[in-house]
């Protein structure tokens, strides 16, 4: 019961938010919610730390941006194309890296992400250090105008809700069960006749596609795609968001993304301190609160309920 009240309140708040808050900030949060959810799918449920997740996010921004700038494609098709392209990239990354577990997977994905970074730095269409600018917000389905930030917000919100619902379905499907089993005991899953590598590759593919969707959305929100979105700083930020919110929980990425985006926005005036504070909070979370905010809240709730 309380759960439905909570959902309804959250829904009303999300619909009313752009009347009160700067829509660009809200859309940034939503993009990172989807991005963090995609990362959480890998680390939280499959136990795979992708240390270069920004490669999907940033590359998708370039792909969507290029399509919107140079073709007459509608906005939803640009999103779809970027998502599919990143799913393919994710599949390839999975082929190379999924056989290696734990820490090796992290280092390999980190190095592949840097490879992609240098490719994009050299590629003629990305605009190099300047980035790709002036990405248009083409009409939705070719008819609905989403060029104002206010209307675009509702499109981004709708896609975010769908994406979170998709993650929910994936996690609560038999496939999700197998993923969690691989995370907890890979050898046992193997002995039961499932091929863990194939499940991991599929998980990476799905996660990459979702991260690509997030990046494509961000390209239309800021109307610019930059190398920064492919850099290891962004890969690190997304880990921070997911961990801060709570690994392996559905609400975690939402809470983490919202908090970190607002924190970044607030700290933007403090220059170098922003990085130092982010690093310190990150370290504190790793040392003292690995279950994250949502995990801690759940534990607290359980303790209170059990006591009373």
């Amino acid at each position, binding site marked *: 019961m309380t759960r439905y009240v909570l959902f309804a309140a959250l829904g009303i708040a999300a619909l009313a938010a752009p009347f009160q808050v700067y829509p660009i900030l809200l859309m940034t949060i939503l993009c990172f919610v989807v991005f963090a959810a995609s990362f959480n799918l890998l680390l939280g449920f499959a136990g795979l*730390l992708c*240390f270069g997740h920004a490669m999907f996010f940033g590359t998708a921004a370039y792909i969507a941006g290029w399509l919107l700038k140079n073709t007459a494609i509608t906005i939803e098709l640009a999103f779809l194309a970027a998502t599919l392209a990143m799913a393919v990239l994710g599949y390839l990354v999975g082929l*190379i*890296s999924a*056989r*290696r577990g*734990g*820490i*090796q997977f*992290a*280092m*390999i994905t*980190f*190095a*592949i992400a*840097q*490879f992609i970074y*240098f*490719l994009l730095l*050299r590629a003629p269409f990305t605009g190099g250090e300047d980035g790709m600018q002036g990405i248009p917000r083409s009409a939705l389905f070719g008819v609905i105008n989403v060029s104002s930030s206010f209307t675009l917000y509702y499109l981004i919100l709708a896609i975010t809700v769908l994406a979170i619902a998709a993650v929910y379905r994936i996690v609560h499907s038999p496939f999700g069960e197998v993923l969690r089993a691989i995370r907890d005991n890979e050898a046992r899953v193997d002995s039961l006749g499932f091929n863990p590598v194939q499940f991991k590759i599929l998980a990476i593919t799905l996660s990459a596609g979702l991260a690509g969707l997030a990046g494509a959305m961000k390209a239309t929100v800021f109307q610019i795609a930059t190398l920064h979105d492919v850099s*290891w700083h962004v890969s*690190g930020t997304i*880990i*921070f968001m997911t*961990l801060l919110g709570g690994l392996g929980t559905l609400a975690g990425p939402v809470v983490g993304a919202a908090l970190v985006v607002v924190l970044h926005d607030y700290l933007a005036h403090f*220059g*170098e*301190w*922003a*990085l*130092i504070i*982010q*690093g*310190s909070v*990150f*370290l504190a979370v*790793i*040392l003292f609160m*690995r279950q994250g905010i949502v995990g801690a809240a759940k534990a607290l709730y359980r303790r209170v309920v059990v006591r009373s």
Partner: protein
Amino acid sequence: MFDHITIQLLMGQLLIGLINGSFYAMLALGLAIIFGLMHVVNFAHGALYMLGAFVALILLNSFGVPYWGALMIAPIVVGAFGIVMERLILKPIQELDHLYSLLATFAAVLIIEGLMRLQFGASGLPYRSPLPGGVNLGFMFLPWYRAWVLVFSLIVCVAVWYLIEKTKLGAYLRAANERSEIVESFGINVPLMKSLTYGLGVALAALGGVLAAPIYQVSPSMGSNLMIVIFAVVVIGGMGSIIGAILTGYLIGIVEGLTKVFYPEGSHLAIFVIMILALILRPQGLFSAAEKSR
């Protein structure tokens, strides 16, 4: 199409590649020691290398300590800092999944780099070469300082390899990290051994930083740029393989130099192409066959 290639260009780039390779080898070696013995992927390795360079710069500018003094002092100072770091942020999480130690050192990078940028700004600061002049080799001009780096780093790599693999202290270090309960029952201080392992790896990074200061400019981001290559080197060489790290470091430096001759645009990509090929063809690492398999 290779008309522009002369023997001067080829030999020159080969030498530059070897010098870059010296840095790759020294840093990858430290990373491999820390990973091979403690199972910690030290993402802060580049930041500690940067700290080494800055300690040398501060020693020179504020205390008048010359390069040769800094070469001794900086690794000790930064190594001690590393030991403090190990006690504060790595020891509390050593029983957990190794992913957490990677993330903890990553967070440390944000803090260290941020603080250095706050203090010294983002731009590079020059460090005067302690060995001005050079020698004309016929095909190129070799500055004395670069020759010194080449020779010295090779000596350091061999010495550290000998220390870890052939001496009693090295055996203690390896044993303390592999079978800590048994080693502890012999009366050996295991936590001290772990701190020493990390301190040694960090001191190597700092030594690399001091060596790099006169060649590259000293800047807060010098470490993270190098770190990216070092990660690829360690993946190619086989994680935790000490000899693999050294050889791959030099190899990658040479390959990078040669691609600068034949295909300048691709010199940065070459490393990653090799990495991806190595992962597909020899997933256990190029040199890991020589090591005992775990």
